[in-house]
């Protein structure tokens, strides 16, 4: 009998796939035959179908987000107690083979597309003539293969756990450290200051966009925020795991991302990686909204509101990441007078 959280992931995933497929049928009809202001019964039916597509996609998005959260919770906090030899999510992913990382990658891509659809739908609803209805229909169609593949790989990953022999959780982490130590690559000490400078720029730019409407309306400001965030997020993740995690664990060379999710370390991985996810979604959303605003001038006002809201969330998420990620390092420095390592 699978663990209840595994059952929850499977049920939520199955429902979200069914709903996004049903939404896709309506969205396909809308994309193919939409004729704005046409008086025909067919167009009136399409308007109803557009509404039901949006409703189904909204519920599917909610269920998929819930299943993704449940999947992370299962991998990080529940399954390590079940998979022999696993101390954290690293061991669980090791037991899942290649399917686990693929499932996570596909889930991230799906959440990105569903987030883009949600933004398009919200913008579309601000105008009664629904100028983005076919664009948001295409976004639903794009989400279908991604969500389906993400769910498929998740099921494969969970099936891979059955009958799995013991894993050697920490060897994955320490082999990685050993290989990095012997490689000829530069040591990357520049990355930490670069991440801090990038964070300062993101907070300043996001704050300025949120506080001064003129800055948010300026062409390509949202794109600049997104490009900066796209470079900053992977660097921040690397710095978190390589440099800052030591201060959470209290040991020098345990570069494991999944242990940050463990209760013994305050489950700080959830807000830290959650903050990175918020930065990714909102910076990408701001860039998408900026592009929409240039192509659809009638949406300029709601676009500006969205961009400002997204910029504010980016700035706040970066601050949360800095406080939670670097806070323990500063405390260590104050208490002990030296940095670790």
């Amino acid at each position, binding site marked *: 009998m699978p663990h209840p959280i595994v059952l929850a992931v499977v049920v939520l995933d199955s429902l979200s796939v069914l709903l996004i497929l049903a939404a896709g049928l309506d969205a396909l009809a809308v994309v193919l035959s939409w004729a704005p202001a046409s008086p025909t019964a067919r*167009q*009136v039916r399409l308007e109803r179908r557009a509404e039901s597509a949006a409703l189904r996609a909204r519920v599917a998005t909610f269920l998929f987000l819930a299943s993704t959260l449940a999947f992370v919770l299962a991998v990080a906090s529940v399954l390590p107690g079940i998979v022999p030899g696993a101390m954290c999510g690293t061991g669980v992913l090791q037991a899942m083979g290649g399917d686990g990382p693929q499932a996570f990658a596909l889930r991230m891509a799906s959440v990105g597309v569903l987030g883009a659809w949600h933004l398009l739908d919200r913008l579309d609803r601000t105008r*009664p003539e629904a100028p983005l209805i076919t664009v948001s229909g295409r976004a639903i169609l794009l989400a279908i293969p991604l969500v389906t593949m993400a769910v498929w790989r998740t099921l494969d990953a969970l099936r891979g756990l059955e009958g799995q022999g013991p894993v050697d959780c920490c060897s994955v982490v320490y082999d990685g450290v050993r290989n990095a130590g012997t490689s000829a690559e530069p040591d990357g000490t520049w990355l930490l200051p670069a991440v801090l400078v990038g964070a300062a720029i993101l907070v300043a730019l996001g704050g300025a966009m949120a506080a001064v409407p003129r800055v948010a309306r300026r062409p390509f400001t949202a794109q600049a925020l997104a490009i900066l965030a796209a470079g900053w997020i992977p660097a921040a993740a690397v710095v978190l795991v390589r440099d800052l995690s030591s201060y959470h664990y209290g040991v020098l060379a345990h570069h494991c991302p999944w242990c940050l999710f463990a209760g013994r370390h305050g489950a700080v991985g959830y807000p830290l990686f959650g903050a990175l996810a918020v930065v990714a979604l909102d910076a990408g959303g701001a860039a998408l909204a900026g592009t929409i605003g240039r192509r659809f001038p009638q949406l300029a006002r709601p676009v500006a509101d969205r961009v400002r809201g997204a910029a504010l969330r980016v700035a706040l998420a970066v601050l949360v990441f800095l406080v939670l990620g670097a806070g323990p390092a500063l405390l260590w420095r104050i208490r002990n007078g030296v940095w670790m390592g």
Partner: protein
Amino acid sequence: MSDTGLVLDRVTVRRSGTTGARPTLDGLSAAFPPGAICAIQGPTGVGKSTLLHVLASLLRPDEGRVLAEGQPVSSWIAAHRDRWRRQVGLGLQVPVFLEGLTVLENVMAPRIPLERDIRAAVEQAHAALEAAGAAHVADRHPSSISGGERQRVGLARALVGAPRYLLLDEPTAHQDDAGVMRVVDAVQAAARRGAVVVVATHDARLSGATDLGWRLDDGRLAEAR
């Protein structure tokens, strides 16, 4: 073009399957301002009900558009049109009711999704029934009341919640002179509070109460006064 009230802007409607025939409504333009009682008159079958359905955005014109406060509501998608239609009180020529409900519940029905407190919907329904002269049948079922009373209950349902746009189709059908006076009082009260009132009728008893009039004939609209 007026940006208050309801405006017909070159509206053409063809009945389905009659592409080559003369349109039911042929390029109609007219403005129905707030605060005035506007009458559409004309013989039976000329398209008065169709015109009211177009004004209420129940039908989308084949050509032209309907503007409400300057906004082209007829070209809006269903979701926005439906929301706008919450401001419309529509009295049908042959009122249709939910027969399992009482008269009061039928009149309350349009307000139930819009009011947070059910008591507000009850009060509004009682007030509308009183204004339409149908308070005495509030607790009866629609199937047990006369044709004239059904017409008054239909009027009450159109009046409930003080709609911005009051569109009435033959509201004096099956009414005696006292009933006609009730209808006149109700529409005059609506006009006084600034509603857009459009009445489709061929009842000469109403003509004295109207402020603006049009005659619909052969698909065309002509000002009657």
